[in-house]
């Protein structure tokens, strides 16, 4: 198992779930990622990723009531767990440290 290590896509999905708050579910995550990364993200990939994140204990899910726009069908709402939040924070800190290592180089 990969343990706490998560890939780039997993990190993005985890961040999206965190950012969307109560509104995080398959479609909203997919739409947000597609809008922000301007690359085509498949719903299947998002599902697979969310499943893995849940398996690793980084997110949790619960069924929530549906809206008319989805024909009243229920949706699976995701939220970031405490572990997930810790992972995100540590990843962010890692990045910031690494940026500080090379302060003199021009960004981009």
């Amino acid at each position, binding site marked *: 198992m*990969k343990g706490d290590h998560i*890939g*780039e*896509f*997993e990190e993005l999905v985890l961040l999206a779930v965190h950012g969307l708050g109560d509104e995080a*579910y*398959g*479609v909203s995550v*997919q*739409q947000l990622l597609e809008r922000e990364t301007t690359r085509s*993200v*498949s*719903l*299947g*990939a998002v*599902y*697979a*990723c969310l*499943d*893995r994140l849940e398996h690793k204990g980084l997110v949790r899910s619960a*069924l929530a009531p*549906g*809206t008319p*726009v*989805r*024909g009243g*069908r*229920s*949706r*699976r709402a995701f939220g970031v767990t405490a572990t997930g939040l810790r992972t995100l924070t540590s990843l962010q800190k890692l990045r910031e440290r690494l940026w500080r290592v090379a302060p003199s180089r021009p960004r981009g």
Partner: protein
Amino acid sequence: MTRGRRFSHIPSVPWLLRRVLRASRVEEVEGDLEELWTARASAGVGRVALRIAYVRDVAGVIGAAHAARNASRHPTSVAPADGRTGMGTFGMSHDLRYVLRMIRRQPLFAAVTVATLALGIAASAGIFTAVDRLLLRPLPYPEPERLVAIENPPYSFARGRMDLSPRIMRSGLFTAAGLYAEGGVNLDAGSDAVRVPAAVASPGVFAALGVPPQVGRWYTADEDQDGANTVALISDGLWSRQFGRDPAVLTRPLHINGRAFRVVGVMPGGFQFPGRTDVWIPPFADRQITGQAFFAQVAGRLAPGVSPAAATDALIRWNEERGTPADASQMPKVTPLHEELTARVRSTLLLLAISIGLVLLVTCSNVAGLMLSRVARRHDEFVLRRALGGSRWRLARLLLLESLVLSLLAGAGGAAGATVALRWVAALATDPVPGVDLGAVDLRMLAIVFGISIVAALLFSLAPAVAAASQQAALAIRATATTTRGRSWRWFRHAIVIGQMASALVLLTVSGAAFGTLDRLSRVDLGFGSGSTTAFDVSLPLSRYGSPATAIDFHDRAHEALAAVPGVTRVAATGVLPGDTSTGVGIRVERAGQPADPSRPPIFATMLSAAPDYFGVMGIAVARGRPFRSTDRIGAPAVVIVSESTAQALWPDGRDPIGERVSAGLVKTAQAEVVGVVSDVLLRGPATTGHARQLYYPLAQQPPYGAMSFVLEVDAGAASSATLAREVREALRRIDPSLPVYNLRPVSTIASGFLAAHRLAMSLMSTFAVMTLALAAVGLYGSLAQLVSQQRREIGIRIALGADQARVWRSVVALGTKLAVMGLVLGVPIAGIAARLIRAFVPSLDPPSAMLMTLSSVVLVGVAVAASWIPARRATQVDPLMAVRSE
């Protein structure tokens, strides 16, 4: 478009999702899919893009579900870390992306495969559609299996009219039966007269077919008479064109051949019997349409439970009871109507269907060969995948997916091409079978052919894939270092090549035989020339041109007017031209004053009328005596001209017939002097030799009945054909504006028309043969090229050990030739059997000669050597050092 409407269009696939997802997740996934669809739709995504995105979503979901299932089943396998995948497990959409990448990387391979398959699909779907529509599908009438054609039924001639014997209806064999014959009528349409296709049909025909009119009713037996109160049925097309679909058509008169008919009904659209017909009239309403004699065909509906054979037997028994002489050609015969109607195209279509089946077989095997060589080339990749834990099923799936993608591309191309192919076939069946539409390709047929191709490609690509996948990884890796790999596939490929060579030989031989037959027929002397001559027909309504005098007067005036048309050098007329659908009348002819010898069969000749210049304009040679003169008119001594065959039959002792007297027809006292002998004319085309007994009367003594054909000798280059046509119509309009000129055509088209169907079938056959030959050559080339690239090491070692290049070259070409010869050994007997089988249903096809067989074999071996050339050259260029080191 509103959101609501888009909503209604979302394709629902719960069954699919339920198969791959846990039940608890189906609802939420469906909800997500619908929400995405709506979001995209309201963002203005187009219909097609919307669907593509949807399919992608569904595929992605299925892929993810699969991956999740695999991950839980093999917890140690490498789980994909992100949207992309590693070697272990990956979803269908990834496979698809991988396959597309592979295809893009080798565009030539993809192009050849797709083109080959598309061609095969197009040709076979087109031909199979035609076969299905014309031969297999039942006629579009209720209970079509009970519809029959009746040959030589018992007739009655009561009250001077020919009709089916009333016994036939009393017999209980048939529930309905009637006479019909095709023809045409002049229709007075306002200012202009037009010629429309028409038919006479007794009420029994409609009752037998069982198709009621959409407006009005059928006419009845009581209305079948030549009187004031004549009736007609019209087609849906004529109702639209002439009456604007006005239901009041039943109260308005229709002027046919100068007489008023009452329309009693309008047949529904699509009703075409016999052939494309606009007007139906009862047989005795107008004798003109059927010509001098009533050559009727008979359609009937069998009573329930009566078979055609039983009906035939019953009719023959009647004949025997009445003591009618049992002449085989005069025997009654009841056959399914469908068979009778398709008799003309049946054999050709079957021949084409069998040929195209062979082409399809070769196409599939060739695609399989291409796939195989691909698999062989990627052998190392597969071995590596297996070693790294790729499952057998996954490897097979990759290959299957690749075949599938290529097949789908080919199918799209094939669908487009099939329409073109069908148009060719439609041209073959110039006179389509009644009620059969050859317009569009049958989607089911396309799907079937497509399916066959896909299954074939899949099967062939699966076999080696499974073989590759099932190899023990360690063994396989070791095998890459040796030359033994792929030996079994090689034989598989060689077997395919041999089969292709055999198929090519069969098609070459058969198409060669078809070409030979066409060549022989096109050399047959038809008895008439086709210089710069133009012909056209006019129909003379009996209401105004009923007497010989009026017809002769019309001819004289028309002759004068046509001769004055600029560019026309000579004018002549006759009753029946070669190639006309209506035959001349066969009459019995005897030597005058000599009672016929009862022991000898009577001599019948086709009775024709000819104007003085007819033989000259038509290029019919006058062998003896003289042509007709303008003085051979009513009142002058009766004269005739006979064809050579007639002369031989009448005077077998070979004496000069000039000056002899003959009597012909019913009036035995009417004798005429033979003034000339002309060459035989094959009125029905080159395949009808031996039916050329003709007896010509001067047109001014015996004018043709009802219709006249003019032939014009035109000064070549004087005027364009369009101008000539206009001038001719104008000249005739001045004489009688109610007479439409029709069938205006160069006489040369008459001769070419006889062989048009033969020519088209032949060109299709040879196209198939060339296609097969090319496919076989590609197959052989591919097989040898693969062999050479596999044996680089061996070849390198041989060269290093001192084998000269010529020897290496020879060994490759020898293998190619060996495969071709094995194909010949297999193909020659098959071609012989095929030719015999084909002759059974295409009697006009000459059997392939030994010469032709030899020629085809030489061509085949030549092509094989040519196809071996490049691989052989490549073999000689192997650098021994490089070859050995590269392994």
